[in-house]
């Protein structure tokens, strides 16, 4: 018998294999527990809220009576806010992504832009609310509680996300495309806008949708700029005081009346479905247009 097969060695090996199995089991447990928390959350919301999803709920606005209260007012507020956010953050984000990736010289101020963008992407969202309150409402005098101010605030929050994903999408377009365009006489600006940008667009759109989905679920900054309003009618324009979907969830969760538990859960179902649709669209775009070079 060699020294590999002594009883001590066999016992040690058994212990090591047991440790291996324990470690592997810990991994499974970690994933299963995390996912069952998600399942528990979703099942709780669906079971409490599904009874409240009817036409009355989908078409109504906020009300003090849980049976009359509906989601359309807040939903329209969310749509208006998102429209402002998209209109500002998409062009700004794409243009700065193009500049930083294709044209920016190695200068001190460009470094500052890059540092700013990386940090803004990680700044707590409530800080953007403080910015919105101090600058847009107190200083510039824009209407409080309005989708306009909410949209601008969320746009500043979403822009870094679009810039970062936009830069990655532009970076993944192979240099040969640029070389070919430049070789046949296109100017650098023409090269970027006629050739690089169209090829990078699916990636940019995917990043934009993900950023917009994050903005749609955001509550804290909108709380600070006063979108915590009781709106019994849908907003007519971006300057009307309005609520948004997550804010409606927050407001209803604060109500003492038990009838609002169903409303809150039903509103959560609507919000999650909407987010799921947006993320599904992003995945579809990525799979459909993604080019492997």
């Amino acid at each position, binding site marked *: 018998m060699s020294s590999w097969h002594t009883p001590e060695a066999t016992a040690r090996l058994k212990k*090591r294999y047991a*440790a*291996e199995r324990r*470690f*592997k089991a*810990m*991994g499974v*447990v*970690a*994933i299963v*527990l*995390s*996912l069952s*928390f*998600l399942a*528990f*959350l979703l099942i*709780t*919301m669906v079971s409490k809220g599904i009874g409240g999803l009817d036409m009355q709920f989908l078409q109504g606005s906020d009300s003090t009576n849980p049976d009359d209260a509906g989601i359309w007012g807040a939903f329209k507020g969310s749509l208006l806010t998102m429209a402002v956010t998209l209109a500002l953050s998409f*062009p700004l984000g794409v*243009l*700065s992504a*193009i*500049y930083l990736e294709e*044209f920016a010289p190695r200068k001190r101020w*460009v470094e500052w*832009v890059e540092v*700013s963008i*990386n*940090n*803004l992407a*990680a*700044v*707590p969202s*409530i*800080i953007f*609310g*403080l*910015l919105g309150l*101090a*600058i847009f409402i*107190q200083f510039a005098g824009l209407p409080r509680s309005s989708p306009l101010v909410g949209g601008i605030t969320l746009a*500043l929050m979403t*822009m870094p996300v679009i810039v970062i994903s936009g830069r990655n999408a532009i970076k993944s377009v192979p240099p040969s495309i640029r070389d070919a365009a430049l070789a046949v006489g296109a*100017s650098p600006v023409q090269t970027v806008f006629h050739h690089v940008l169209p090829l990078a667009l699916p990636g940019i759109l995917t990043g934009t949708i993900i950023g917009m989905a994050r903005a*749609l*679920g*955001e509550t*804290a900054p909108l*709380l*600070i700029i*006063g979108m*915590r309003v009781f709106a019994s009618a849908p907003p007519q324009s971006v300057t009307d005081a309005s609520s948004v979907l*997550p*804010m409606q*969830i*927050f407001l209803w*969760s604060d109500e003492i009346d038990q009838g609002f*538990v169903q409303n809150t859960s039903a509103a959560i179902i609507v919000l*999650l479905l909407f987010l799921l649709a947006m993320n599904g669209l992003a995945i579809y775009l990525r799979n459909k247009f993604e080019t492997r070079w």
Partner: protein
Amino acid sequence: MSPLIILIALFALAAASWFAARAKARLFYKGRGSMAALPSYHGWHMALWVLVPALAVWAIWSAIAPGLVQSAILSDPAAAILPKMDLERDAIIAEAMTAAANDGFGTFRAESAALVPAVQAITVRFSWIGAILTALVAFAGGAFGYSRIKAAFPARTRVETAVMALLMAASFVAILTTIGIIGSLIFETGIFFTYVSPADFLFGTNWNPDPFAAVTPELGEKLGAVPLFWGTLFIGAIIAMIVAIPFGLMSAIYLTQYASANFRKFAKPALEILAGVPTVVYGYFAALTVAPMVRDFAAFVGVDNPTTESALAAGIVMGVMIIPFVSSMADDSIAAVPQSMRDGSLAMGATQSETIKKVLIPAALPGIVAGIMLAISRAIGETMIVYMAAGAAANLSANPFDSMTTVTYQIARLLTGDGDFDHPATLSAFALGLVLFGVTLVLNVIALNVVKRYREAYE
């Protein structure tokens, strides 16, 4: 003239001039190489000349018009009835201007009601002046642009210079946002510190803000933020991390080292859904389901009078929210460890778990630690979960079943209350915001640098 109409009119004019300029430029076209720029670039050139100066003039006018309207009202004969006192006079004018915008409704003073017609006339007059001025500049710019259309005119290089300026301006917005955040936080915090000394705020242990209290030097005694800093760290950096680090790390290890491709394909996106659920949903779930469970558990282990709002409930839910974040950061760092190190360890006879524990994790540690720092920065900046589940009581205790409050909770509560914006208690929200911003900034900068250096080390 409403701003929207002016904007639409300007853009319509620019579009029309695009076509006009292109049509004129086409007349110069005498075959390949006969022109310095394609006709459509002449279109863009003229459209820019219509749009940019007019927009600039209009923006400047919008900025100075309120001041001009104010002085015009004062020099109007109808303003003779106004008192000489500045404060009251301004209040009356402000009221009359609001009423004028609302067709004369909403006046409380006789003086302002009398002033409404004059104010309306002046406002209308000045908005017309602005609109006409803008139109004049637009047409002048257009005429200049149109006159430049020649075969030899390098319209493309001019347009491209403008495009570059636009790209630079867009990049500048990020810096402006950062400056805006830092500037507004420091400005409001500076006002706050004229009422309350920084030492009282940073080291005081009694937090009991009252936005309606009289402003006295003793106010600072009730604005000591230590309990908030403690609550924030206890919930975000301790409880949440006790949940998120083991779960996130183990799921990353399992997904990258053990799981089959099929399981990974299903489990990874499923974990990412956890990160995509809005925080308000987590907050509601924490308050509705997790908090009562924690309370029952506290009663079960023998805590006296357990509350529904507890640091533990908020911390656990926040930890679950952070799991996918920790997991994906750990995933990246482990994947960056060179295959040769793993192969070397396995070749020496180590089991897979021994390789992971003794080789991969030590090698990936800088990246993992940086990921945890980013996770903490995210957790302490989270608002909705603590707002809905952790409570308002500023307790300085280490008992996880106690109700505790955080920096973000207090910012949100102080600024959504009915308090006066200029009251020190309300302004303290900005001081809290500055502390939060500073701490997360330091965490982010250190973590991003560690990640960068770590990646370079293995490349």
